[in-house]
C-alpha cells in the first residue's frame, strides 16, 4: 500500500487547526501518511516527496475566500517545475464561518489547477465552523466525516463531503462571540477593545 502525503498549507502551520485536522486524518486513515508543512523555502523538497506518493492531501484554511498565498505560491512552483509523477490531489479545507459552502470557490480553484497541470482530482472535505469545531461538543461530527474522507482516499473511491456545527446562524454568532472573547481575554483585551472601529490608531508607527 502506498503512503499518502499530507501537506499543511496553513500560514500558521505548526500552531494551526489544519495540523489538528491532518492528525485526525492520519489517525483514521487505513494507509500510512507522511505529514509536511508548506514553507517558503521547502517547495523543491516537497515536490521531491510527491514522487513517492500516489495520493496528496492538501489541508488548509480558507483565506480571504481563496487559497492562502503560501499555498498559491507552492502551486505556482509546481506549475513551473512539475514532478515526474503526479499524485491524486485531495482537499481538506476549513473555514471559520458556519457554512462549509463558502469553501466551494477554493475547491474549484484547486480543480482548475489539477486540470491544467495533469493531476487527477480526488476527494474533498469542507469543514464549516472550522476554527472552533474541534473544541466543541460537535468534534465527533468532524471525526466521522474525516473517517469517511480518509477511507475514500485509501480505497480510491473519491467523493465530496462537508460538515459543520449543527446549530442555527444566530446561535453560531453567539457561540463564536464567546470564543473570540475568550481569545482576547488571554491578552487582556476586552470586548470593547476588540470592537474598536479604529484602524491603525493615532499611535501607529
Amino acid at each position, binding site marked *: 500500500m502506498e503512503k499518502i502525503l499530507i501537506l499543511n498549507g496553513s500560514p500558521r502551520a505548526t500552531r494551526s487547526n489544519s495540523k489538528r485536522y491532518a492528525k485526525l486524518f492520519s489517525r483514521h486513515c487505513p494507509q500510512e501518511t507522511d505529514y509536511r508543512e508548506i514553507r517558503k523555502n521547502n517547495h523543491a523538497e516537497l515536490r521531491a516527496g510527491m514522487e513517492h506518493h500516489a495520493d496528496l492531501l492538501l489541508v488548509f484554511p480558507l*483565506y480571504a475566500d481563496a487559497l492562502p*498565498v503560501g499555498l498559491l*505560491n507552492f502551486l505556482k512552483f509546481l506549475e513551473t517545475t512539475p514532478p515526474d509523477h503526479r499524485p491524486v490531489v485531495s482537499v481538506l479545507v476549513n473555514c471559520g464561518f458556519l457554512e462549509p459552502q463558502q469553501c466551494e*470557490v477554493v475547491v*474549484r480553484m484547486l480543480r482548475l489547477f489539477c486540470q*491544467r497541470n495533469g493531476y487527477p482530482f480526488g476527494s474533498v472535505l469542507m469543514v464549516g465552523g472550522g476554527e472552533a469545531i474541534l473544541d466543541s461538543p460537535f468534534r465527533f461530527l468532524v471525526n466521522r466525516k474525516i473517517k469517511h474522507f480518509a477511507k475514500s482516499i485509501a480505497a480510491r473511491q473519491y467523493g465530496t463531503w462537508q460538515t459543520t456545527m449543527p446549530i442555527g446562524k444566530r446561535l453560531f454568532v453567539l457561540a*463564536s462571540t464567546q470564543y473570540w472573547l475568550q481569545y482576547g481575554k488571554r*491578552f487582556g483585551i476586552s470586548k470593547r477593545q476588540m470592537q474598536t472601529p479604529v*484602524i491603525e490608531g493615532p499611535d501607529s508607527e
Partner: protein
Amino acid sequence: MKLILSDRPLNLELPENGEIRHVDLSTLQIANCVGCFGCWTKTPGRCVIRDDAVRVYPLIAESDTVVYVSRIKYGGYDTIMKRMLERAIPIQQAFIRIHRGETHHLQRAVTPKHATIIAYGAIEQEERSIFERLVARNGYNMNFIDHRILYVAESEVEKNVKDLIETWKKS
C-alpha cells in the same frame, strides 16, 4: 477617496488634491499574513507585522471606490494582490454577523465601496467563472456596494485604468 491598487507599475497622471490615490503593490515590502489573529485579539485594528501593508489597509478602509488591478491565477488574485488582501484583515473584527443570509465578519470603520476589478492574464472561461464567484464572495467580506470585473489583455491594463480615471474626472 478613490483608490487604485495595482500589482504592477502604472504610469498615471492623478489630480493633486489626493482624491484619487494609486498604490503600486509591486514596489512595497509586504510579508505574508501569519494567521496570528493579533489584529483581532492583541492589537485590534493593527497588524503586528509593521511593514508597508499597514499603510495600505487604512486606505482600503477609507475609500468609497476601489480599483484592484491584478493578474489572475487559478481563478483568484495572483500573489501580489492576494498577499495584500490577506494582510487587510485588521479592517475586520473577529466577531461574526449574519450578512446576506450567511455568517461573515463584522467590519470596523470601513466605508461601503464601489469596486472595479481589472483582471488580466490568460483567463479562460472556467477561470472567469471562478473569479466572478470569488469577487462576489469578497464583496460580502470587504463591504462592496457593487462590483464589476473588466477582463483585459496585459498590454491594455494601463489604458483601461487611464480611461477609468478620465471617467471619474468628467463625473
